[in-house]
């Protein structure tokens, strides 16, 4: 078994009181917590500090730890022989056990060792496509347990959206002493779609229009989850307008669906043919429309001869 100098890890003397130990731990946690630090190796330093703190903040574990003769960090040592008997009478095997687990096991035996303990919860991520979120899907989830690996077929019902969470009750680690089994928490993220952007159950896509389609109106074919649809673009449609197709978005899971929105933007040809150029020149000469006018744009869009 490898020795760990918990006092050195936290940077406190062996006679440090509870308050000094807590303060030292919090400083290290603030420095190395994975949510705070992106420095390589910080997560292992955080875990090391958390292990040291878990032992030293608990009077029974600390007392057991203090019985050990100090060794160099990482040095092999043999725990007192009586520990083997005390620890082995719990549900754990003594060999290959980590120091922290051994101390926790011994402390639990001295205290209320038979209180029900909830099994370990697991967090997992599922990245699914927009179509899978709409129709529902089944994913295979590999779960590592103490007794080996299991594969769960998890049904994700229609109606999933970005950031939603699923709870798989009782599918985590085994409970101990009559405690309930742990759960699995599945975090759903949607794979970005080449056409649609999702806002909960509503879908948005960019609809490019020619200047004449935007000005005169047009029926254009647009993509939807149910296949191509015809969308009527009203005359006088400006860039950034949202045209709604009701009930053509993602399934909500309540038998309804979100909406599908076409976000318009007006595109122009990169190169004009001679007739196109002539028509645009004619339009420039005829039209009084000024898109930069501060006054009401609807009024400024009236044709010159109106």
């Amino acid at each position, binding site marked *: 078994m490898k020795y760990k100098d918990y006092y050195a890890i936290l940077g406190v003397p062996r006679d440090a009181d509870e308050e000094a130990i807590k303060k030292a731990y919090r400083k290290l946690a603030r420095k190395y917590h994975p949510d705070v630090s992106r420095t390589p190796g910080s997560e292992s330093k955080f875990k090391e500090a958390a292990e040291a703190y878990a032992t030293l903040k608990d009077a029974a574990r600390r007392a057991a730890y203090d019985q050990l003769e100090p060794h160099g960090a990482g040095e092999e040592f043999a725990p007192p022989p009586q520990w083997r008997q005390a620890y082995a009478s719990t549900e754990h095997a003594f060999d290959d056990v980590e120091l922290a687990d051994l101390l926790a096991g011994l402390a639990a035996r001295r205290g209320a060792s038979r209180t029900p303990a909830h099994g370990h919860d697991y967090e997992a991520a599922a990245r699914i496509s927009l179509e899978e979120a709409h129709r529902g899907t089944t994913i295979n989830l590999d779960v590592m347990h103490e007794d080996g690996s299991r594969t769960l077929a998890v*049904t994700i019902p229609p109606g999933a959206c970005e*950031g939603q969470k699923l709870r798989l009750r009782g599918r985590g680690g085994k409970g101990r002493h009559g405690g309930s089994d742990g759960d699995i928490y599945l975090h759903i993220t949607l794979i970005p779609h080449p056409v649609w952007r999702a*806002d909960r159950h509503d879908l948005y896509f960019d609809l490019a229009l020619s200047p004449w389609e935007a000005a005169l109106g047009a029926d254009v074919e647009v993509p939807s989850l149910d296949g191509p649809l015809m969308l009527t673009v009203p005359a006088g449609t400006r860039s950034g307008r949202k045209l709604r197709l009701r009930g053509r978005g993602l399934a909500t899971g309540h038998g309804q669906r979100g909406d599908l929105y076409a976000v318009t933007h007006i595109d122009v040809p990169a190169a004009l043919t001679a007739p196109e150029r002539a028509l645009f020149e004619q339009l420039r000469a005829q039209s009084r429309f000024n898109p930069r006018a501060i006054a009401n744009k609807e009024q400024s869009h009236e044709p010159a001869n109106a």
Partner: protein
Amino acid sequence: MNLQTHESLWLDGRHTVDAPELGRICGLSSGEILELMEYGALAPLNAQPQSPVFSAGCIAPLRQAASIRGDFDLDIFTVAILLGYINRIAELERQLRALHAQVPSHQHAQREGPAVWHEAHAGRTENRARAADQE
């Protein structure tokens, strides 16, 4: 390989959870759940203080707050403050996702995601026109 099928439960407003279950799921005692209610960090759906019921939507943020509590050895009042910020961040993230969805893709900063949609046949027509123009 042992394949097991299991149904799943959404953690949102479609389901509810009582106080003992919420505490068990999040690793908090009934007293701590009550204290979070007193601080206004947890709001039950019903008005019966003896048997409060919560939206399942509060499970994920409370589990996150309880996990951070364990990592930093925080007291329950700090967890109440933390829970407020976690919920606020989640709401801001939701608003940001909504804005990203609604704003045309060419106005976004470079990111992973959809490009401008073009009709395939319309693109071909334009290509033909360009080709004719070049001839």
